[in-house]
């Protein structure tokens, strides 16, 4: 019964979205306030109905209702509760429901908190947002309905893919979707502005918090996914350049570019049409991500059960929204003339450089991801484009970005002098260079990657610190002023420092990682680097829905036991799949990562040990970036915007 109600609620949400798509759009065109006002209750209704449908499906998963097809295929009565809940979005149908839930949530938030927007702009934004909703409700209801019943319910479910039975699944997809779909707000704002024919500083100020929020969610989502892969897949890789990872990374890069260019629009009224284009592309790339995961066009570890019909449907959605928006852009972009005048050497120019590097690097990923398809269709060559390509083609852009970042961040608006900024960064440069040379001398004979990473990390982090310090002016009580600096300044410094930490960690981990593979006898200590490991016992244990071979490994250094690790090898009998559960001793400067393998003929066990320097800094840096975004989001100028807007509203509408 609850299931049928959920199904019905989803159809109602679809109807509400159709109304919200058409009525306010017409109202905004004809300047009819009553029609425009429909958007708000429609958005609220749409959200509540979708939330109910979501709750109904959640109920089916939690109570293991095996009359539902999607529950049978992705759940099992013996599965722990957390994975019954997260199993909802561990499959195609359920994840699409989560997707529309977030679309309607963002629409509803814009309706609730958008009181400070000019009424026509608000009506148009909500209508465009509803149009995105309509496309995906139709997609769910016509091709991927999660509420389908089975005529003959089976005894028990077929269980969820064991790799997905991890707390990672509970958090990684929701954050990622909040990010992807959050970009739909930037898209809706861009399209609405194109229809209005006006983009100004006020528009940039409204669109920036949404983009910032989406980017924060995307940052957290990607970092969680990377961390999950690191501890779950059994060899400690953190990034594989898999098509689906690329699909999440491209919108992240474009959203980062958009964040920076929106600043130029807000402060200087320049780069307007480019910012609009970025907003369209960022969401377009989110849609491409959805398409890649669900169409089966590219093979990927992430792909859901593939179905050409669904692929075609999403391709149509993708073409309609991205193509339509780009056509609108081509027709209307000319209207937006730039106002700000600035010199060749200025913060504006530095932000243009930032945008070029981010956009081109994301283009390189796009090209590499799709090249196998192009090569097969156009040149009849079946080939692969894998991590070695992306590492060599993408990395230079990040190195360049890291090099120019501290200089660009300190250049003044309008007109600056490169020499002056460079001079103020001289100590930062010397510090970074000294550290890099020190590392170079210490590691003799290894790749240059390590020192380069150290240089970039130190250069960016201390550059961000100097930038913050230089904003406190001269004279006494600089510390007091430092604390009272606008949150946006702190956000900028923290996010940039986070990028520095992540770049350093990726380079350090790649350059200095060491690995040891051997057959280990029980209670026979072995050395890996500076550590002594002893396999003391191996037990056969039983989990709630799996069997486990659990080893006990003592990790010691200089005779002192640091920790006792329990690497596992699991077998999930229902899904017929083995998994490895690595045991990790986390540390600030290194992780010790232990994996147990098969029993060997001589009675020993295969054991793999990795020492992974600075691994945690990768995700620590990402969290710093997200924290920086959060600080920026809480800046006073966004919080007071609501009150200050009232006076300005008339002037904006008067043009």
């Amino acid at each position, binding site marked *: 019964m609850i299931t049928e109600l959920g199904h019905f609620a989803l159809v109602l949400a679809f109807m509400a979205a159709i109304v919200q798509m058409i009525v306010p759009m017409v109202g905004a065109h004809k300047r009819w306030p009553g029609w425009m006002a429909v958007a708000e209750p429609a958005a609220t209704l749409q959200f509540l109905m979708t939330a109910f449908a979501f709750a109904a499906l959640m109920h089916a998963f939690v109570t293991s209702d095996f009359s539902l097809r999607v529950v049978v295929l992705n759940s099992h009565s013996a599965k722990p509760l957390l994975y019954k809940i997260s199993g909802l979005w561990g499959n195609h149908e359920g994840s699409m429901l989560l997707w529309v839930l977030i679309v309607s949530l963002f629409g509803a938030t814009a309706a609730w908190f958008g009181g400070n927007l000019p009424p026509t702009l608000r009506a148009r934004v909500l209508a465009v947002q509803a149009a995105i909703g309509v496309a995906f409700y139709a997609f769910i209801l016509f091709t991927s309905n999660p509420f389908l019943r089975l005529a003959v319910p089976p005894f028990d479910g077929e269980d969820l893919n064991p790799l997905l039975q991890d707390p990672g699944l509970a958090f990684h997809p929701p954050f990622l979707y909040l990010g992807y779909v959050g970009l739909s707000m930037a898209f809706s704002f861009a399209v609405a502005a194109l229809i209005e024919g006006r983009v100004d500083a006020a528009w940039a100020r409204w669109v920036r918090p949404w983009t910032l929020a989406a980017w924060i969610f995307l940052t957290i989502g990607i970092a969680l996914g990377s961390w999950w892969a690191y501890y779950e897949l059994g060899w400690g890789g953190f990034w594989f350049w898999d098509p689906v990872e690329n699909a999440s990374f491209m919108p992240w890069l474009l959203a980062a570019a958009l964040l920076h260019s929106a600043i130029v629009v807000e402060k200087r009224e320049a780069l307007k049409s480019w910012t609009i284009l970025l907003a369209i592309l960022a969401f377009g790339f989110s849609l491409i991500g959805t398409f890649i995961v669900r169409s089966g066009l590219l093979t990927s570890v992430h792909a859901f059960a593939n179905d050409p019909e669904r692929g075609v449907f999403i391709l149509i959605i993708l073409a309609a929204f991205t193509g339509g928006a780009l056509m609108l852009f081509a027709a209307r972009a000319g209207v937006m003339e730039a106002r700000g*005048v600035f010199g060749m050497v200025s913060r504006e120019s530095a932000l243009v450089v930032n945008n070029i590097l981010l956009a*081109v690097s994301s283009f390189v990923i796009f090209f590499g991801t799709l090249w196998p398809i192009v090569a097969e269709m156009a040149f009849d060559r079946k080939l692969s484009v894998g991590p070695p390509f992306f590492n060599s083609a993408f990395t230079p852009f990040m190195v360049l970005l890291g090099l120019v970042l501290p200089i660009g961040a300190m250049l003044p608006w309008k007109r600056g002098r490169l020499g002056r900024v460079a001079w103020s960064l001289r100590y930062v440069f010397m510090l970074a260079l000294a550290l890099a040379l020190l590392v170079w001398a210490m590691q003799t004979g290894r790749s240059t990657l390590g020192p380069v990473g150290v240089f970039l990390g130190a250069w960016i982090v201390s550059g961000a610190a100097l930038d913050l310090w230089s904003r406190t002016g001269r004279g006494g009580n600089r510390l007091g002023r430092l604390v009272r600096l606008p949150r946006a300044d702190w956000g900028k410094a923290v996010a940039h420092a986070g990028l520095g930490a992540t770049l350093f960690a990726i380079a350090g981990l790649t350059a200095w990682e060491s690995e040891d593979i051997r057959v280990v006898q029980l209670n026979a200590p072995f050395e890996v680097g500076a550590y002594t490991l002893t396999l003391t016992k191996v037990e056969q244990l039983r989990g709630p829905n799996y069997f486990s071979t659990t080893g006990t490994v003592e990790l010691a250094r200089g005779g002192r036991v640091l920790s006792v690790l329990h690497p596992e090898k699991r077998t999930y009998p229902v899904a017929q799949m083995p998994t490895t559960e690595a045991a990790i001793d986390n540390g600030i400067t290194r992780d010790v990562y232990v994996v147990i393998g098969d029993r060997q003929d001589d009675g020993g066990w295969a054991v*793999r040990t990795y020492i992974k320097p600075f691994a945690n800094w990768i995700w620590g840096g990402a969290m710093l970036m997200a924290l920086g975004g959060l600080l920026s989001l809480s800046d006073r100028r966004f919080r007071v915007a609501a009150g200050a807007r009232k006076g300005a509203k008339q002037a904006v509408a008067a043009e």
Partner: protein
Amino acid sequence: MRRISQAIRGLLLGFSLTLAAPVFAVQPDEILADPAMEARAREISKDLRCLVCRNENIDESNAELARDLRLLVRERLVEGDSNEEVVDFIVDRYGEFVLLRPTTTGANWLLWAAGPLMLLMAAAMAWAYLRGRARADRPQESALTQDEKDRLRRILED
């Protein structure tokens, strides 16, 4: 009812445990005695795709085929092949699809050149735009009407 289902499950569990023993990526018995040669083998393995997997190299893969390829790489190395010869040997048998690092032959140059070309184009466009901005006539700013100036001021004040 529930107890029966559990009993059946238990039975199934017993079976599958013996069937699905996990295999490991690089096995201890595969490792070559000569560390330099082993390092070369690992280097080569990282650029070769496990053909039956989804986007994994043979060094990381658990699949049986990946193990065969790893052993083949080591066999060729022991017989004195250079790294290139080993890779060519494998490409001859499994096709270009096995290479994770695409070659630069044929149309592939476009793939490799795409980034630098795009960067040059973007830089040229940005240069033109920035010059335009820097040269934009000063009078343009004072050409604003009083009304526009007021609006601008209010916007900047927010």
